[in-house]
């Protein structure tokens, strides 16, 4: 036998098989196996069903107010499953529509946060040096920016809209992502892999794109779910305080109206519970899935020495 022939054998160690890139379906299956993740997924499916299918089955007509005084603030009945508002509107139908806005704002804000955060973290961690220092100081600035005063100011300047809300939440969420990505990239850039590819003549962009980004992608994904849950909650809070878009009926807005009309003191629990439960379930769903993802994807991160 030619001693130079190195024949391909089986996997030398089952331990190392963990380092194989995980196929997409594998991640989903892993989340399902995890009890935390499973609960989150079930809640998520429920929420998405409500939001996407609900309004189709039960259309909401913002113009349909109660016909008579008798239909104001009615408890749940066969006619109105979750009761009525102070204007005689059907709470259930509001619930179905309101979720969309919450999710929409949540997603836009998260998108902004992710692009800014991951992008900045990547650049900052890869180059280190003075670029890192400058970018990190900018990050620090945004980190301490308070969401509430900012949105009040911007709302006063540009009016209350979904866009402003998304922007503000996005702007105040990206720093935490940036920091997490940056520290991972800082350690990755020291690996022999990066040295080898640089010695081949690869440019910085190529290295970031092909060798570093895929390794931090799991981290970004896990972080995304958590940021999303935070964004949804933030939007609900802002809408509750009356800083959201007054025209769009989101769950937060519903709560805002409920509060203003004195629903609690009048015992109209259905008015508060319904949107409240919606917010809780949606935030919890994303949070649970996010934590589950973090747990699943982390061993890969730890193992990717």
């Amino acid at each position, binding site marked *: 036998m030619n*001693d*130079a*022939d*190195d*024949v*391909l*054998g089986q*996997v*030398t160690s089952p331990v*190392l*098989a963990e*380092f*194989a*890139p995980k196929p997409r379906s594998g991640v989903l299956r892993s989340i399902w196996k995890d009890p935390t993740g499973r609960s989150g997924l079930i809640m998520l499916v429920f929420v998405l069903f409500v939001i996407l299918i609900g309004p189709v089955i039960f259309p909401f007509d913002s113009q349909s107010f109660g016909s008579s005084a008798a239909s104001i603030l009615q408890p749940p009945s066969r006619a109105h499953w979750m009761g009525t508002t102070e204007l005689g509107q059907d709470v259930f139908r509001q619930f179905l529509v309101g979720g969309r806005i919450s999710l929409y704002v949540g997603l836009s804000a998260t998108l902004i946060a992710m692009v800014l955060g991951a992008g900045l973290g990547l650049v900052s961690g890869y180059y280190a040096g003075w670029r890192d220092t400058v970018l990190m100081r900018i990050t620090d600035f945004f980190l301490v920016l308070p969401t509430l005063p900012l949105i009040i100011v911007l709302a006063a300047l540009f009016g209350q809209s979904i866009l402003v809300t998304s922007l503000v939440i996005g702007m105040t969420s990206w720093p935490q992502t940036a920091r997490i990505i940056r520290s991972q990239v800082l350690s990755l850039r020291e*690996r*022999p*892999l990066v*040295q*080898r*590819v*640089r*010695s*081949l*003549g*690869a*440019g910085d962009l*190529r290295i970031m794109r*092909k*060798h570093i980004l*895929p*390794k931090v992608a799991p981290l970004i994904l896990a972080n995304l779910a958590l940021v999303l849950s935070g964004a949804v909650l933030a939007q609900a809070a802002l809408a509750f305080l009356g800083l959201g878009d007054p025209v769009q009926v989101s769950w937060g807005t519903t709560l805002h109206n409920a509060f203003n009309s004195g629903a609690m003191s009048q015992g109209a629990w259905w008015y508060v519970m319904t949107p409240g439960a919606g917010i809780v379930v949606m935030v919890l769903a994303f949070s649970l899935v996010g934590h589950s993802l973090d747990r699943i994807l982390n061993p890969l991160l730890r193992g*990717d*020495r």
Partner: protein
Amino acid sequence: MTASTTRGSNHVLEVRDLVVQFAGRGSWRHRRAVKAVDGVSFDIEKGEILALVGESGCGKSTIALSVMRLLEPTSGRIISGGEDLATLRGRALRRARRRVQMIFQDPFGSLNQRQTVYDTVVEPLVIHKLGTTPQERRAMVIEALDLAHLRPPERLASVYPHELSGGQRQRVAIASAMVIRPELVIADEPVSMLDVSARAGILRLMMDLRDRLGTSYLFITHDLAVAWMVADRIAVVYLGRIVEIGPATSLVDGPAHPYTKALLSVSSGDDVSEDGEITSVLSGETPSAANVPSGCRFHPRCPRYLELGEPERCRAEDPQLHVVRRRVPPSSEVYDANAHQCACHFAIEEAP
């Protein structure tokens, strides 16, 4: 300083007075610069394997990384293909990288776990825009894998690093370096993380590539015995300087520098006597580069220094490399690349 070269056209690399300095520790005011590499010069001829041997921290890896411009040299010239690599940047540097490639110590860490062997080996072709069609590139990759003794290459091209053994992974790294046919390959401890039984295969491969393609090697290792197996010439590095350099046989049969002699004694097991008593060859530890001894940097640990009654010269004067043995008569004008040089005031000059 030794005589300047006149056979420059045959050199793939010429390093002159390389200095690599790092900011030391300590407060702003008292920070002392640490010279990890303090004036190193050497040449590598076409088809030659030069080994840099020394203990960890002596600066040999720093030399390698500086030549590759993965670390920035503080001063000195690194001449390859008529250009000074130390001054290049941008596109010119990338072009120059086609000539000089590097292999690293950790075969697992230097590969991207998410890329197949094919992706890893085709990458340099993509970076340097070699091969006009995907088919052409594939053919080049298969050829490189075959060259690196990874057989059957078609099958191995589609596996992932975790499915390979340490030796195979290192071959993949070698294939990715060789696919662009560099003139010089710098190998930084290429076998020290491999099992002993896998080492010979990699060393054989390197020599095979040298014989077939004329690739030169700068082989970094802490193991003199490994250097002995592959190198044409060996340079011994101590505390940022080359203290001895010469043909492998001449150096191993008749070391001129006391440090080389000590390394040799330990590496060959000659320091163990008949009844198992181990004689201590060197006392103390290698000083850190921040605290370089005065005069000859080796004198505090040098057995010869003690033997000769602690001569003043060793404490006061920094010895330069000078020829102790050459194959060409001293009157010749031609620089003898195979001259055996040593930086010691009292070099052991007996011929082997």
